[in-house]
């Protein structure tokens, strides 16, 4: 078995007394290329997860390993290899460009520093072809300053950058939340192309379940740093197992007039209560409509009521337990022998 590309080994993050992310164990292989959605609201830990994976934050617990080596102690050459293979797209299409330079700078820099182009001419050709592949006209895009392009164009250019760099893993942190609805399809479409044509696994971090549903194959739902549900996206969205997931899915405003929010029932009063102060039990206990006394005492393990989905909830006590280390297989980051990836 080859060393996984990127590995979270019980990696978690604490800021003072607050645990932003509970320990996660996940292995990302090179030869598996799913699109994994990481869904959660602000404070769920999804951004922390991205920062950990990109080496922007050191882990407080556990380790993050790039091809077997601890990310925190990579030497110069290994670090460059890390950058070559793990790339990202960020949320704000304006702030991501240095206002002092033309937009080309964001594409030329990595080509130069990561030694991906043979010459300046070659770099230029690569940039132009990448632009065209995401539906941008190079002559209308390259050579301009960031404020001269629209948000959608800037973000598509970021996708072009990812295309250019051919990473082995792409982390997309809310790539379309700051873009107009009518332009999102274009950016998300380019991301999907990246995944299907170049077999690049993508971690799609979002708070928007709807776009996740259309783009991703598998999903992790985070709530206050804990993975509360995970699995095949169709199963999780259509048949959520965890009360929080159910709440999330019910609260997405549907443009269908005959499908009211939460079936017409208002949000229960319990939702306005603050989060629990003790860290012992389930973080959702104060707001859960199905909370039981034991939920406040101890954290639930992962249960797998079915083959494609797991939930961290005592409601499923009695169903087969699920080992955290098998998460990677469930999320299709490891080709598991018992399951074919549905196309």
């Amino acid at each position, binding site marked *: 078995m080859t060393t996984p590309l990127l590995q979270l080994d019980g990696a978690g993050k604490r800021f003072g007394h607050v645990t932003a992310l509970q320990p996660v164990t996940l292995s990302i292989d090179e030869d598996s290329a799913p699109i994994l959605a990481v869904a959660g609201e602000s404070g769920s830990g999804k951004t922390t997860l991205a920062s950990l994976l990109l080496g922007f934050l050191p882990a407080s617990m556990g380790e993050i390993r790039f091809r077997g080596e601890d990310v925190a102690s990579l030497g110069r050459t290994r670090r460059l290899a890390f950058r070559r293979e793990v790339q990202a797209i960020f949320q704000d299409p304006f702030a991501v460009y240095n206002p002092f330079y033309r937009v080309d700078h964001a594409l030329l820099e990595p080509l130069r520093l990561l030694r991906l182009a043979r010459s300046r001419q070659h770099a230029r050709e690569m940039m132009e072809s990448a632009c065209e592949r995401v539906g941008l006209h190079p002559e209308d895009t390259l050579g301009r300053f960031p404020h001269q392009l629209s948000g959608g164009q800037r973000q598509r250019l970021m996708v072009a950058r990812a295309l250019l760099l051919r990473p082995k893993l792409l982390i997309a942190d809310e790539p379309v939340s700051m873009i107009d609805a009518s332009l999102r399809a274009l950016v998300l479409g380019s991301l999907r192309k990246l995944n299907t044509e170049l077999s690049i696994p993508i971690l799609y971090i979002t708070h928007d379940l*709807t776009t996740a549903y259309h783009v991703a194959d598998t999903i992790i739902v985070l709530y206050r740093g804990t993975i509360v549900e995970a699995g095949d996206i169709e199963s999780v969205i259509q048949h959520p197992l965890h009360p929080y997931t159910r709440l999330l899915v019910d609260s*997405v*405003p*549907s443009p269908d007039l005959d499908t009211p929010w*939460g079936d017409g029932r208002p*949000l229960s009063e319990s939702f*306005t209560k603050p989060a629990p102060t003790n860290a012992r039990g389930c973080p959702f206990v104060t707001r859960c409509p199905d909370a039981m006394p034991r939920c406040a005492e101890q954290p639930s393990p992962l249960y797998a009521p079915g083959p494609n989905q797991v939930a961290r909830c005592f409601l499923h006590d009695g169903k087969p337990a699920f080992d955290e280390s098998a998460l990677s297989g469930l999320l299709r980051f490891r080709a598991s022998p018992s399951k074919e990836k549905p196309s």
Partner: protein
Amino acid sequence: MGLHVRDLSVTYRTGAGPVRAVDSVSFDVAQGERLGLVGESGSGKTTAALALMQMLQPPGRCEGGTALVDGTDLLALSPPQMQQHRLRTISYIPQGAMNSLNPVHSVERQMRNAMLDHGVSPGRREMRQLCITGLAGVGLGPEVLRRYPHELSGGMKQRVCIAIGMLLGPKIIIADEPTSALDVVSQRLVMETLGREQEKSNAALLLIGHDIGLMAQFVTRLAVMYAGRLVEIGTIRQVLTQPRHPYTRALIGSIPKLRQRGVLSGIPGVAPSLRQLPPGCAFHARCTVHVDRCLVERPALDHDPGGHHAACHLRDAA
């Protein structure tokens, strides 16, 4: 009763020439009714709202139109007069999660200032009672009075903004993207709160946003703006199920649904720069069914007997 806007126009005088951010927009919001105003960035929806509140900053200027509330034209009032009307007749609820609240003042102080600034000065005890009642209306306890904005979550900040906006019982409420920065659950909570308060006071509500799904769940009528112009207006059911303007159709078609996994589609092309609006219909370059007439003649909003108006030459081309 209600808000009646006719031919509202706003121009920005920029170095590169005048830009029509809002172009002859007309609509009505009846008392107790909820009108949604959707449009993408650059459509002019927030500019229109700010114009109604006389809160435009230069180089933006309201260049025409009337906004009648109980016979008074809000746009014709002098600044001191408008100050009296703000919050009492018409109020504006901004995105609270953003910097709408003063970070160095407690919630109570901000609510008090809102009252004092708009000509209401009951005694201290009465003011405190009003604040507590206001907060209770949005589901927040009196302990929030002492808190500072940074101690509150995004949803709580938004609800404080709603409370402030409704303190003086305004007849017209303009809520400008009140839930944009919030997660879906907080969004639902905030909208349920807003809806409840609006029903209690029978105020006319103008909800501005870009999320059609949210509109579908909340408003009774919907207006669509594009490039500063109103292109369609009708009941929510009319506009969603039988859109008459190609832009509305494209917009609705591009909404992904949570129950059906399908192909995501958008609207090709980019919105025209307001500086260089084409003659004729602003949407024709991205329109799949445009004809020659669309290039030269600007369509006007028609007068449909069913109340479902659209500004398109091919009005009923399905």
